[in-house]
């Protein structure tokens, strides 16, 4: 049911980007959140939190109904839901970001990958990456978000976001180089 606030919106043209996003993706996002959290009320909280994050990056979204925006909305709600799930389980395990700093630096790769690199080759290697690497690379290269915005969405520090992004790129390059060689 639309509440008092939506009554203030007069015409279809006046609908805001946020409103269009909400009405297009609310069911999908709630379903994604529910699939992770298995709880309707928590899924609702996740939906609200996701829109709080999205509100700050609306300028990065051009078309409402396109694969790029759908991927963005799903990634944001997935991340919010997973964070809530982990907090709820009160996992005392070390976070991945902390872990990242404990891992020895991955060897740097100076050589270029082949100029015959195709989307399919890269796609195949992306599939081998950990989910958090796929997620951060998508936010960076598909949704064109700044490191700072990514950090806010993923609820990690700016330096952790940069570090994770760097590792994701190195890991992907490593996988491609292995195949090329």
């Amino acid at each position, binding site marked *: *049911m*639309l*509440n008092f*606030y*939506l009554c*203030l*919106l007069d015409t279809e043209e006046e609908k805001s*980007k*946020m*409103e269009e996003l*909400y*009405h*297009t*993706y*609310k*069911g*999908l996002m*709630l*379903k*994604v959140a529910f699939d992770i959290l298995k709880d*309707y*009320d928590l899924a*609702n909280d996740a*939906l*609200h939190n996701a829109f*709080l994050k999205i*509100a*700050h990056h*609306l*300028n990065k979204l051009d078309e409402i*109904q396109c*694969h790029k925006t*759908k*991927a963005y909305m*799903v990634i944001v709600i997935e991340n919010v839901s997973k964070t809530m799930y982990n907090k709820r389980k009160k996992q005392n395990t070390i976070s991945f970001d902390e872990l990242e700093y404990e891992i020895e630096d991955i060897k*740097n*790769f100076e*050589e270029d*990958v082949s100029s015959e*690199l195709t*989307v*399919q080759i*890269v*796609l195949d290697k*992306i599939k081998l990456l950990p989910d958090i690497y*796929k997620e951060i*690379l*998508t936010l960076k*290269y*598909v949704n064109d978000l*700044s490191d*700072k915005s990514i950090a*806010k969405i993923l609820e990690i*520090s*700016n330096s952790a976001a940069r570090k994770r992004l*760097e590792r994701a*790129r190195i890991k*992907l*390059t490593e996988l*491609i180089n292995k195949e090329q060689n």
Partner: protein
Amino acid sequence: MKNAISIPNDILSEALLRYQNERIDNKYPLTGEYNEQMEPNKQTEEKINRLIQLEKKPYFILINTIGKRVACIIIAMILAMTTTVLSVEAFREPFINYIIETYEEWSTISFNNSESQNSEGIVLNEIYEPSYIPEGFTKTFEEELSLSYFCEYSNANNEIIVYQQNLLNNIQVNIDTEATVTEKIYINNVEAIFYENKGQNHILLKGDQYVFFIAGNIEKSELIKVAESIEKIK
């Protein structure tokens, strides 16, 4: 030296998008159709609709980095120096560290705290709030975000007062200035902007570290009293 990725960005972007499409479409092949299966509860719907309303309101404050807006700022500086739009003149006078971009129906003010250009990692760690609110109004909504604090007060007649505290660093404020007369006022001896628009009175006040925004369909004198009562609560 760390290497820069040698995979061309366009190939990487395309591959990532294909991956996400495959993954998401495999699990969630539909989009809007899920609205029929999953309906948010009333509380969530109301909260998100408040966000929607905020986005549409003239006082919706956008956080943006100055870096991304360099081009706009250059244009804005030219506009600020040459514009003859008197209705927004008051906006240019009181503050030294802002740049205003004036359009036919609205203006954008970019605040820039020169003492702390690097806003990275800075979050709101102090909350200020008015200690005076006119009789009959109670706080009906409150939201604390990393860079801003927002609350809303309403009374039995559905009259609303909104209050927002934003970090000064690199913020941008969009203000509806169509058919608006602005006025320079003083809040506790600090220059501020007052303007009335569409039945709502507004005050914009810049502090050392924060920009405060108060608006409501209450008397100007009452709104000033609200602004004067802003104090640190935590």
